[in-house]
């Protein structure tokens, strides 16, 4: 087993004259939850595209060990399939019908949607849909989960609840996670390591390690402290005295 399932080695990626990455190196350890935050347009989505093999670097190397699944902001579920059928997509590798049914039930239970197995995505709320998408991605044998602003289309309270749900799901189904988000609190609440990108061409501005066990409260001192530090790094907060200032 490889202890570093995701490695970027001095990756450069340009789109014409636009240089997104110049010399980016990054390693993600097995089972680690890494969150990437940064100013908009800094290349967070390009990073996920490179990691998921939808894009190739101009130079450098992206090494990826294991199966990768991505969860999108919205609309990633197949609207012509029911909740069960969508989750079963994640169990396609299982040939044993009974085992597949058992795992499907288990996933439905984990996301508390047992009563919605036969519903179609259009019949669910935004939060329910994202839960189904997470369940589909984590069903079966996923090694690496890529999250592309998975909760950004949801309202604030649902977003808070989804963070708790994700932490719970990952406790049951551990895997390596890369979360790309605009939501700094989300990063601080969920990640083992938060990476702050600079403006384009994106460099790693700073890395924060968080050790408090998940699920973490939004008001947990380590979360608050991390939020403050990230905001300072992004130039959105001025000094340490304003650690508890509200933006």
């Amino acid at each position, binding site marked *: 087993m490889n202890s570093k399932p995701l490695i970027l080695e001095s990756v450069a990626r340009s789109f014409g004259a636009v240089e997104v990455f110049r010399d980016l190196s990054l390693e993600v350890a097995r089972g680690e939850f890494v969150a990437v935050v940064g100013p908009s347009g800094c290349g967070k989505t390009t990073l996920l595209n490179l990691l998921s093999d939808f894009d190739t670097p101009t130079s450098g190397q992206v090494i990826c060990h294991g199966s990768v699944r991505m969860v999108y902001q919205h609309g990633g579920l197949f*609207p012509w399939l029911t909740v069960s059928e969508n989750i079963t997509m994640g169990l396609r590798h299982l040939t044993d019908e009974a085992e597949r049914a058992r795992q499907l039930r288990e996933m439905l239970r984990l996301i508390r949607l047992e009563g919605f197995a036969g519903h179609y995505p*259009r019949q669910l709320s935004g939060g329910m849909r994202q839960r189904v998408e997470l369940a589909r991605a984590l069903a079966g044998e996923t090694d690496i989960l890529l999250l592309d602003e998975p909760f950004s289309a949801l309202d604030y309270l649902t977003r808070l609840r989804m963070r708790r749900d994700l932490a719970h799901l990952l406790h049951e189904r551990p895997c390596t996670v890369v979360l790309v988000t605009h939501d700094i609190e989300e990063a601080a609440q969920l990640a083992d390591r938060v990476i702050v990108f600079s403006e384009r061409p994106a460099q790693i501005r700073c890395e924060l390690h968080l050790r408090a066990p998940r699920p973490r409260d939004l008001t947990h001192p380590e979360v608050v402290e991390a939020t403050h530090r990230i905001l300072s790094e992004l130039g959105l907060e001025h000094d340490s005295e304003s650690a508890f200032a509200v933006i």
Partner: protein
Amino acid sequence: MSMNVATSNDQARLLPLVVVLIALALWWTLSALHVFPESLFPSPVSVAKGFVEEFQTGRLLNDLIASLFRVITGFTLAVALGIPLGLWLGHRTSARTALLPAINFFRNLSPLAWIPFAILWFGIGDVPAIFLIFMASFFPVVLATIAAVASIPSVYFRVAQNYGYRSTELLTQVTLPAIAPQVITALRVTAGLAWVVVVAAEMIAGRDGLGFAVWDARNGLRMDLLAVGMIVIGIIGVVIDRLLVQLMKIQSVRWGYEQ
């Protein structure tokens, strides 16, 4: 409150029937008052008699079956060839660039303009009518399929790649279900077009069929039978549309109409 809603729903369902009854009453009044001569404006009673006559001789049923056969054959051929071609062109940019102007040309060329050639090439009977229906249906089906394929969100294919879908699975489990709602809408419109065209085709290139019946009634100065033909053509058109609407109610397709 719910009582009121139920009543208004029932009333709403009766409204179309009321309109039909008013139209019939108006028709009957106009002919009873002899506003227009009977030879130009048949009365409801004579039309009803004509209907019974046509039904009893078996001619009406015969014409109906002839027309339906042509429409179903021509339309099925157009769909069976048009959807695959549309799928192929939807995925192939260069082929699409090459063929789209030609397809648009034929799409905008009235199928009725083909009638002279249809008769010259295929004579009189089933084949020219089927040909004309095909020409009327094929190009709209191709264009609708191309548009539907082009509008599939790319995220579906990314997801499919993540979950290990292979080439045939991509077609049957992603592309086809993703385009189904739009294609069904196009089929509905096109079937209506095909039904319009069969009547015109049979008027000129037929020896039977509802279009021929209408033309024949006009030549025989039987305005009652002319009206019978028109009413049947209209009703069958509505029935075809209602049948295709059922496709839109399939659970795995409804997402396309509710967003």
